[in-house]
């Protein structure tokens, strides 16, 4: 009998996730134990915010520790996972702030909502650390099941149930595909641990090529569903539209960020250990996915007059830019190895180049997290209750003349739109700069050019919102919901982050550079 010896100290690396889970349990219990006579739920968002803040601070500390295996190699604790957890906690905190006002306005504020948000956050944090397929699957499900329930939170009406159902059915389907792929990889290599998989892959490819390729492909498809890459993006607009706006924000930021983290963690060994031919194959596969996602996402967003759907398609497009970064990560700029090797500058500095690319991906994830939360937050502040007929609740006309009615909200939304479009001086510009530079350094010049062209198309529909806010007269009889201080605080924070990080990204990008270390044998 082989019984592993663990101690309580071994749980220290998962402290952020534990804190989030405990916060969720506290919220569940206080919700059912408070007396019905004096019901006041204002404390709930503050409790959720406090737990996210503490978890984020603890995770930030782990980015300074060296990378190591935890739980017998089922997970890893490395600066990268710490940085992703910090991103998740930033997203959680902003989402909680937006939710407080949003739910109060709809009389739908309950402890369970915040509890589900925190449970989803715990799943995300653990997913970023998962280094084994079964662990990865369980944490993916913890994250997904919470978001399925959250997307149908506003039960009245057909749209939330449509969103919940679509997300649940397609999410379950994609998770099944991922598990099937993992089982094929297990069949080919005899291990589910990613750290052991790396060493066994070359032999598996030699003896069982079909099994290995199919398994890897299915795992990639399962994760591509979660990041909403084209052609696995069909659910995105409907789900983001039907879900409560703060939840759409968290889905576009947190779920996507962690899915990208595990995409990198699972597939980097493939590119590293299978030789240059396979690295090239994977680079082209992910480059094709990135190209498709960028182009289709931006083109589909062009005709949307419904701002929430537009933001959903824009999140598809941003997944494309991130996939471009992932493709650049897999390209090996080592010189003399086929068409990818065009930068002799980086020859022999592969590790440094890889770290720089990871840094670009992390920076882009951070930029997208604050910008997406801010733009969905501005939408949540403006949006009236869902009793309006389909399509009108988030119509562009709602933004007409916003600069006169609510200059502060209009300014925040304008900053977010500029950042999503990648226009200086915003963080979105810096993110795009870093990620396109990484792609060019990796020899994917054509893809970077395609990305720049696609994002130029994106500027049209982002700026259209700004034009409506500042240059169109306000419609008669349009009312805006009352102000909620929590939502406005979220807007102030995200606008400040977008502008400050756009002007002076140095400190943060240096920190992310130190955090761009993945565990490796």
């Amino acid at each position, binding site marked *: 009998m082989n019984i592993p010896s663990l101690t309580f100290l071994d749980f220290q690396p998962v402290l952020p996730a534990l804190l989030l889970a405990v916060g969720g*349990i506290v919220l*569940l219990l206080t919700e059912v134990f408070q007396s019905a006579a004096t019901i006041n739920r204002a404390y709930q968002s503050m409790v959720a915010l406090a737990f996210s803040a503490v978890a984020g601070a603890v995770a930030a500390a782990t980015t300074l520790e060296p990378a190591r295996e935890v739980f017998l190699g089922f997970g890893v604790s490395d600066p990268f996972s710490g940085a992703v957890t910090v991103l998740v906690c930033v997203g959680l905190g902003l989402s909680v702030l937006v939710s407080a006002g949003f739910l109060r306005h709809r009389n739908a504020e309950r402890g369970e909502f915040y509890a589900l948000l925190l449970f989803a956050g715990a799943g995300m944090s653990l997913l970023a650390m998962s280094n084994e397929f079964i662990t990865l699957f369980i944490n993916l499900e913890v994250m997904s099941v919470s978001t399925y329930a959250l997307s149908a939170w506003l039960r009245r009406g057909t749209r939330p149930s449509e969103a919940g159902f679509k997300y649940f059915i397609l999410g379950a389907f994609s998770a099944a595909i991922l598990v099937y792929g993992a089982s094929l990889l297990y069949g080919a290599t005899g291990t589910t641990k990613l750290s052991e998989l790396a060493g066994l892959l070359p032999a598996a490819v030699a003896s069982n090529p079909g099994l290995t390729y199919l398994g890897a492909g299915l795992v990639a498809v399962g994760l591509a569903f979660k990041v909403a890459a084209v052609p696995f993006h069909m659910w995105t607009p409907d789900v983001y539209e039907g879900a409560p706006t703060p939840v759409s924000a968290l889905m576009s930021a947190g779920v996507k960020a962690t899915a990208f983290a595990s995409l990198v963690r699972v597939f980097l060994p493939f590119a590293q250990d299978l030789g240059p031919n396979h690295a090239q194959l994977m680079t082209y596969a992910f480059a094709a996915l990135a190209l498709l996602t960028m182009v289709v996402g931006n083109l589909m967003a062009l005709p949307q007059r419904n701002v929430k759907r537009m933001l959903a398609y824009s999140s598809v497009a941003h997944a494309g830019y991130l996939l471009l970064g992932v493709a650049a990560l897999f390209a090996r700029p080592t010189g003399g190895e086929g068409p990818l090797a065009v930068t002799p500058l980086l020859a022999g500095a592969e590790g440094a180049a890889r770290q720089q690319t990871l840094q670009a991906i992390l920076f882009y994830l951070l930029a997208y997290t604050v910008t997406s939360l801010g733009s969905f937050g501005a939408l949540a502040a403006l949006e009236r209750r869902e009793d309006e007929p389909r399509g009108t609740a988030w119509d562009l006309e709602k933004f007409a003349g916003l600069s006169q009615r609510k200059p502060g909200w209009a300014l925040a939304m304008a900053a977010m739109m500029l950042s999503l479009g990648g226009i200086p001086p915003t963080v979105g510009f810096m993110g795009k700069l870093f990620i396109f530079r990484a792609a060019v350094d990796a020899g994917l010049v054509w893809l970077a050019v395609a990305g720049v062209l696609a994002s130029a198309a994106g500027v049209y529909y982002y700026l259209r919102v700004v034009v409506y806010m500042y240059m169109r007269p306000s419609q008669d009889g349009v009312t805006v919901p009352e102000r909620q201080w929590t939502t406005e605080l979220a807007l102030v924070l995200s606008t400040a982050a977008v502008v400050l990080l756009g002007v002076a990204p140095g400190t943060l990008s240096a920190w992310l550079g130190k955090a761009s270390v993945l565990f490796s044998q």
Partner: protein
Amino acid sequence: MTPLAPYLPIAAVLGVAGVLAVAISAIATFLGPKRFDPVKFDTFECGNEPIGSARQRFAVKFYVVALLFIVFDVEAVFLYPWAVNFKALGWFGYMEMVVFAATVVVGLIYVWKKGALELES
């Protein structure tokens, strides 16, 4: 296909099971006597006379009870291997199990206070 070789007995058992299932129902269909009467065509209700239709709406509460049952069932499944290795796992294992059981109990308390266990209300 050497890695799949150990699974050959399972494939054999599956094959035998399939053949047996088809054979038994085929033999019964071809050789069995066929005498029908109205009672035989009626719904089988464990020997009782059926009352009304079975196609009606059931309260969602029953599903909550079923879900809770599964949760505690799975908890029991996890308790068995722990109980077998109780001595080897020591106090750490004991505390682990306490935390695990406490989490499930917290869920039960939540469901209880929420009123999901009250079938009549």
